[in-house]
């Protein structure tokens, strides 16, 4: 009778057996990569395994005695994920796109690292040249895309905020995305400053403190250029809250604890006649609105999972980099939406500036940004067409016939 080997303990079992006679693993549905240590008790005798179970004699119960916990370190993976060759290829495809250095075959990498890549250089000069030209030629202007509902929602929410109300702004983007995120958010923050709100900055990124200062400095500098009596922004910088999702879980329960720790003088009760101080903020719902500025979809998801479920009347708005939009949009495209308003990239900044008419930073750089996108799209389109035509005229050779096994 044909036999099948258990991939976990190696025991030979009858062909039609659904579970292993030695270790009890399900042979029918799961496949295990050979060589993996599946359980600390895999090499023990059946009697030892049975004695270690919570309910001896009952299958599939977990081992409970300390001996199982103190096995020498071995990865405990009851069922490893099986990845097909096609799936591996797709992972590799995406990795190659985002880590182009890995595209070089290993035997050519050393030589390629020292050799200049002429095509790369030509493309780089072309892109930089066209973008620089568009920045210097002010007459070249591209139209603004239609303003979507989520951008209008941001404008409506902000216009309702009274002077002195606290607004939480999470500056959760890496310094690399400063240009895009500041162009996207400047008009919004500028309007909040003009309305006299109390801005409360915080971040789940260590450099967030200085990133927030950079943002507010830029707004002050741009307002100084356009106003004879510039408004001094009223803001507080809580700095960095560590732990990512963990930090947000802390913050949402006790925001006043972080305010007291960072700003001890501001958290005391306000006197009559002064604008509301942060002493009134005892819960996350005391903020009039929460803005999350981020380029990372995982960070956006942390806010949506840890903070948003606690919000009752405080709207959550996102100002995102273009790369985060696809993975965050499902939270907007739902009823009721978890995100009450959203701006994406420079396009979002341009759309909001057309509503508020204050700063025009995004507008000044919009044409160059669009040209860069269109140029990239055209180059890819031409390349794809060319390679598809080449592939059509040069089909792959037919695979050699498989040798028959003796």
């Amino acid at each position, binding site marked *: 009778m044909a036999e099948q080997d258990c991939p976990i303990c190696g025991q030979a079992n009858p062909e039609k057996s659904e579970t292993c006679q030695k270790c009890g693993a399900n042979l029918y549905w799961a496949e295990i990569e050979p060589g993996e240590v599946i359980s600390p008790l895999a090499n023990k005798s059946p009697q030892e395994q049975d004695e270690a179970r919570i309910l001896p004699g009952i299958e599939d119960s977990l081992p409970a005695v300390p001996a199982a916990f103190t096995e020498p370190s071995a990865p405990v993976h009851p069922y490893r994920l099986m990845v097909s060759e096609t799936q591996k290829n797709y992972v590799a495809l995406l990795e190659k796109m985002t880590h182009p250095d890995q595209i070089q075959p290993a035997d050519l990498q050393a030589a390629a690292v020292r050799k200049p890549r002429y095509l790369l250089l030509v493309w780089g000069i072309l*892109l930089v040249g066209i973008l620089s030209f568009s920045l210097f030629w002010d007459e070249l202007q591209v139209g603004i895309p239609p303003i979507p509902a989520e951008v209008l929602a941001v404008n409506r929410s902000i216009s309702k905020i009274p002077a002195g109300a606290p607004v939480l702004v999470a500056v959760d983007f890496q310094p690399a995305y400063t240009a895009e995120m500041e162009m996207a958010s400047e008009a919004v923050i500028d309007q909040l400053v003009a309305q006299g709100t109390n801005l409360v900055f915080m971040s789940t990124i260590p450099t967030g403190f200085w990133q927030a200062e950079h943002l507010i400095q830029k707004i002050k500098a741009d307002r100084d250029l356009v106003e004879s009596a510039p408004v001094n922004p009223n803001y507080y910088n809580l700095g960095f809250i560590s732990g990512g999702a963990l930090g947000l879980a802390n913050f949402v329960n006790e925001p006043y604890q972080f305010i007291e720790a960072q700003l001890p003088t501001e958290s005391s009760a306000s006197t009559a006649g002064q604008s509301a101080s942060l002493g009134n903020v005892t819960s996350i719902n005391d903020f009039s609105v929460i803005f999350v500025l981020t380029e990372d979809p995982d960070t956006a998801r942390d806010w949506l999972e840890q903070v948003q479920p606690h919000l009752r009347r405080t709207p959550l708005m996102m100002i995102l980099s273009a790369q985060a939009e696809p993975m965050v949009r499902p939270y907007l495209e739902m009823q009721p939406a978890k995100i009450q308003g959203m701006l994406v990239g420079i396009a979002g900044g341009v759309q909001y500036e057309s509503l508020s008419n204050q700063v025009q930073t995004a507008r000044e750089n919009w044409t160059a940004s669009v040209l860069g996108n269109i140029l990239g799209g055209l180059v890819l389109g031409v390349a794809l067409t060319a390679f598809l035509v080449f592939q059509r005229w040069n089909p792959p050779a037919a695979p050699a016939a498989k040798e028959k096994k003796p």
Partner: protein
Amino acid sequence: MKQVWRTIAVILAISAGILVLLGYFFDLSAWGLDSVRQVILRWALILAAVALWVGAGNLVRVHWRKMVSRQDGGGYSLVTLASLALTLVVIVVSGPNGKMSQWVFNHVQIPVETSLLALLAIVLIYASIRVMRRRLNPFAIALFLTVIILLLGATNWMGMEASKFSMLREWILAVPVTAGARGVLLGIALGTIATGVRILVGFERPYEE
């Protein structure tokens, strides 16, 4: 001793984890456990920040060894350690709110990081073309077609009415991308739950050595 320590680690991981998890679904203040949960979360928050210091300490240790033993790249390690020390001195002396701290951030950190990302704009297209040179399968074609439509539909061209590309772009983002992203998000969430549960029942112990 080490075995006892490992057992303590497992007990801490499981008990602290279960208490924090219960707080998501039940009101623990009824049992007086809410304050305990808050304390555990506060410890974890502080320890997460301390872990950053441990990571930086490891970085210093690695580069110091490289420098002292005059390995290949030891000179660069000296540069790393010197810039770390100098920046720390600047921040400590001028204070985190100080002008010099902000100056170094504005004129070193932001330019370098932004330039690295800007380099990606040039390298991404080049790398994509190199990938296209290999045999294109239908899914790679679908991927690149999506990229092309989304890039070309960034706005209406030259002041014209909303182009067909723009409308197609909006539909692609609203329907198939939302569907795929929702599936991926659910997959990630289910995977997170599965892995997290395995950790909380002690089946996986990534913290052990």
